[in-house]
């Protein structure tokens, strides 16, 4: 917002100066790294100048900064305000409606013209704007007519119902009407998202509830995956027998790691868990006799439906038993339900534990360790259980990962996985189960979707490979969401213990762990 009493001329002047400074800094940042490219040649590395690219990058920074300053940051009336108001309950001013109307009108025209000319870029951008505004408009309308509905609950129940019904419904719809839905891809993506939701909920026990910062969560994921993979390939054990074993093994590792590091506080704990994650990965990579090193373990069996395998032929299979025609999608749908059940189990166990003494002890520990100790809570046992239970869920998710992939290698268990899971927990709003689910859908789903976007190619030209920019955009999104909403996507939560009525409180009232 602008200082009151500044004229447009003054603001323009300061915005121009600011853009100039930003341009100088951008030039310093990019001059060598973007302006010159190192190229392999016969005589070693040589340099290839790219002045246009440098100019474009600096130009984008300058113009972007100028526009943001003029119309958003320093503006008397930020242009983003009406769009933000679409998603709140504030009343609209007349100019809000004007801005929204013009935007909708222009995007509709761009969309129509783009469709006629067959320009995918126009369609994509205008379509996105229209969809965004449409969602906001529908939301406002519903809220206007039914202001007092329990929206959080409706959202949760609706989400669960959707998660349960989605594969079956889409499968039968597809079979009945041949809509040409990319079912295989949709199911694979949903399974991936659910895996991350489960991991997020598992890590939430450690980070969100107990307030212990764990940067090596992926180690337990790896332990679970390798436990199942090795048991299955060496001893021929099935998924359902190995699942509890994998969970127990991961929990055991959680305890083994937990014991020495429980004396540590905050960031010391973080670095030791990070080191532990790396140690597990390095051991998996180099202990070739057992883990087959970088080549990984392959031929991991799929889970069976009460002993009935999903296979095209060969004795008692799922399709033969139920008299169905074999379809590879059946196995995938089954995997979907397996991870759905696992994820919901994680959620329910966490919610129940929060009401038990141990869960209350976790949260108390997060808030104040010394007070805990003076009240006679055994901090060591409390931390250990949090670690072990979080690790157990990681291990269960890991063995599911192994059975779904059929192949695992240490490459799947790098630090970046831990970082993504932690980001999901924190971006979702610490300790909020719904927030974790939303964050997982946004981060993993959006991230995966980028792999398949042809529309982006039409914006940035044929040479643009979305996969190359995926991680870059992922990182930018991580920083952006965090700066935009430091308290996570779900900024409020219901306290675990209440006097007579559960009222959501701001997350600001909840301390994060310093344990």
């Amino acid at each position: 917002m602008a200082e009151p009493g500044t004229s447009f001329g003054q603001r323009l002047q300061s915005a121009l100066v600011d853009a100039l400074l930003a341009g100088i800094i951008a030039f310093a940042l990019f001059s060598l790294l973007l302006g010159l490219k190192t190229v392999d040649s016969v005589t070693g590395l040589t340099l290839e100048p790219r002045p246009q690219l440098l100019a474009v990058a600096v130009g984008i920074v300058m113009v972007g900064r100028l526009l943001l300053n003029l119309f958003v940051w320093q503006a008397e009336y930020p242009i983003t305000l009406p769009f933000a108001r679409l998603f709140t309950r504030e009343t609209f001013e007349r100019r809000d409606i004007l801005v929204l109307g013009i935007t909708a009108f222009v995007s509709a025209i761009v969309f129509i013209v783009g469709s006629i000319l067959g320009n995918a870029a126009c369609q994509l951008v205008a379509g996105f704007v229209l969809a965004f505004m449409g969602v906001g408009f529908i939301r406002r309308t519903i809220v206007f007519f039914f202001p007092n509905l329990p929206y959080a609950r409706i959202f949760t129940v609706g989400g669960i119902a959707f998660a349960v019904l989605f594969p079956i419904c889409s499968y039968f719809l597809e079979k009945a009407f041949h809509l040409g839905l990319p079912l295989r891809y949709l199911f694979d993506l949903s399974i991936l998202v659910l895996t991350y939701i489960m991991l997020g909920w598992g890590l939430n026990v450690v980070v969100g509830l107990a307030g212990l910062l764990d940067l090596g969560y992926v180690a337990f994921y790896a332990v679970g995956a390798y436990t199942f993979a090795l048991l299955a390939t060496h001893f021929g054990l099935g998924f359902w027998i190995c699942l509890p074993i994998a969970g127990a093994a991961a929990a055991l590792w959680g305890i083994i790691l937990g014991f020495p590091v429980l004396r540590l506080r905050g960031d010391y704990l973080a670095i030791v868990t990070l080191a532990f994650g790396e140690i597990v990965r390095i051991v998996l990579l180099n202990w070739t006799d057992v883990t087959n090193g970088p080549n990984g373990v392959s031929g991991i069996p799929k889970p069976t439906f009460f002993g009935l395998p999903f296979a095209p032929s060969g004795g008692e299979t799922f399709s033969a038993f139920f008299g169905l025609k074999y379809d590879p999608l059946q196995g995938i749908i089954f995997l979907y339900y397996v991870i759905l059940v696992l994820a919901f189990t994680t959620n329910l166990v966490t919610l129940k534990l929060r009401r038990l003494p141990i869960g209350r002890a976790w949260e108390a520990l997060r808030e104040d360790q010394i007070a805990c100790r003076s009240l006679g809570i055994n901090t060591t046992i409390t931390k250990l259980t949090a670690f072990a239970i979080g690790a157990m869920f990681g291990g269960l998710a890991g063995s599911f990962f192994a059975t779904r992939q059929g192949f695992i290698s240490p490459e799947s268990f790098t630090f970046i996985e831990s970082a993504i899971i932690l980001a999901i927990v924190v971006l979702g709003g610490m300790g909020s189960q719904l927030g974790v689910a939303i964050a997982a859908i946004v981060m993993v789903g959006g991230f995966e979707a980028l792999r398949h976007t042809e529309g982006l190619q039409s914006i940035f030209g044929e040479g643009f490979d979305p996969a190359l920019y995926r991680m870059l955009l992922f990182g930018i999104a991580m920083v952006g969401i965090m700066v935009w909403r430091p308290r996570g996507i779900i900024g409020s939560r219901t306290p675990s213990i209440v006097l007579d009525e559960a009222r959501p409180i701001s997350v600001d009232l909840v301390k994060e762990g310093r344990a």
Partner: protein
Amino acid sequence: MAYFLQQLINGIALGSIYGLIAIGYTMVYGIIGMINFAHGDIFMVGAFIALIAFLALMSLGLTMIPLALLIVLIIAMLLTAVWGWTVERIAYRPLRESFRLAPLITAIGMSIVLQNFIQVAQGARVKPLQPVVTGGYVLFDQNGFAVNLSNIQILIVVTTLVLMTVFWLIITRTALGRAQRACEQDRLMASLSGVNVDRTISLTFVLGAALAAVAGLLYLLYYGVIDFYIGFVAGIKAFTAAVFGGIGSLPGAMLGGLIIGLIETFWSAYFSIEYKDVAAFSMLAIVLIFFPTGLLGRPEVEKV
């Protein structure tokens, strides 16, 4: 004995590089209490800037290696410092008053951004550089095993010592150092007594990034090959070093760096090269069990 001595020399050279990076971690931790996860990648960016600046100077026809290296050093320090400043400005300053995990997440995000920016801008292939600083001395020869002290190792240790001294003087003798120590103790009180806290924190990042750039240049000269991923491993090692020595303590960072470098080198030399990182990390866990705040760290006082 000769083998041992050779490993000692190698370990000290490696440890000096870790120490230089570790200072960036320890300073930032000391002043705002956050793990600057992107610092390892700032080091990597520094190495890339140094590489490109060096190649540019070569193609401009500057053949006097010492002068070229000096210019590269200055360019790398300046430009990397701008990177450090920008990262702090974009990702950390807006979250200054937020809860503790928020800047950690943006730091991890920044680390991903920097790695992938370099990958997109400069390609994923490793970047080799012919040895620039060559030659050295044979200290002595024992049964055909010669103990070498190469010029680049001397350069690394001397540069590190000089920078450490300069740095120590900045922290203990200048107004900036005084402001930094004040912010470290109590940010609110410091701002009440007229210290510009935001500027001091920015300068801390700038100094840390400049030292990381020096480490990047030395790494480039020592190993002769860099890629966009070196920041991650070096960053974790350096952070381990900082924690090892007691995070927040400058001599601790240097000591921790040396110890980590030595552990790694000796483990590779006498046991197995694959498990050198395991050795360094296990050593960290063991030390932390007995000294929960590192070797030279101040014991944390628990307050209600």
